[in-house]
């Protein structure tokens, strides 16, 4: 079931998506979904001052991209969340090792990279 979610745009353009806790045990009876969702957003933001003031838009969850394959490339475009393939990939956590492999031209250089890898660098 689709619910209202709040999308915040961070300074680097990446998106935070806040999902409210809509379960029956989370809220008093008789409060409409839309009202409760807004209260949840307020409660979440009250505890995250670093998110306060970020540009925000509320959308239905079923309008988010169907696949998360490009989640880190989601951007807000025309009020809708879309994956932007032009966004560069996030650096790999072991990018240094990958670069070292690319730079290696000899067996000793490759062995040095392998030692680093085995030591958990």
């Amino acid at each position, binding site marked *: 079931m689709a619910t209202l979610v709040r999308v915040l745009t961070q300074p680097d353009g990446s998106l935070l*998506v806040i999902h409210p806790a809509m*379960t029956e045990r989370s809220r008093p009876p008789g409060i409409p979904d839309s009202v409760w969702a807004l209260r949840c957003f307020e409660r979440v933001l009250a505890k995250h001052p670093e998110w306060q003031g970020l540009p925000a838009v509320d959308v239905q969850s079923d309008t988010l991209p169907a696949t998360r394959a490009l989640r880190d490339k989601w951007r807000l475009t025309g009020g809708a969340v879309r994956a932007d393939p032009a966004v560069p990939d996030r650096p790999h956590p072991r990018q240094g090792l990958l670069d070292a492999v690319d730079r290696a031209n000899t067996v000793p250089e490759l062995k040095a990279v392998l030692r680093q890898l085995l030591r958990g660098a």
Partner: protein
Amino acid sequence: MRRITNFLTGLLTPTVIPRAGIGRILVASGLTDTGTAITTGRDVTITGATTVGAVIAGAVTATGTMSVTGAVTVNTGPLTLGTGNPAIVPAAVSGTPAQHGLYRENVIKGWVKAGVAANVIDSFNVSGLTDSGTGDLTVTWDRDFATGDYVIGSMLQSDLLIITTILNGTAPSVGSCRIRSLDNTGTGTDPVFYHVFAVGDQ
């Protein structure tokens, strides 16, 4: 004849209730004897239950406060709390906890099962979940913890070999914690579900 001493709030002297048999208590005022049940809209205080011996075979319904200084034993039937969001608030532990004891320290204070998109499948004491990217989930608690030194349990549901960490860079605060799901290279990876719970002082 055994006696049950019943102190009703607001009375200067205790009301002494002669006991007429199992399941039947004759009362003077403040209580309504229905033969098998005691119903009162006033506060009820029973003191010295362990020495006087209060045995009630029927049901007891107290709309007000019911305070018992002695032990309470329910032999049959569930101990049921009514509607109106009542809670059992256990005492804080002091020293070695009693065996099988319920204390405020060993109550789970919050839990959530979240889908891959940080959508809430089910939860308790959670205001919302924030999807910050692939394998990156922030749980915001509804009722805060007393300090950031509470304990978080996190597990991922997946067919892949992935690990979960509680992000240290954004240390858990009294009101939230951040969970990461990573593959063996440290790259963020979405699980199928997140499972998170927390215990600690509130």
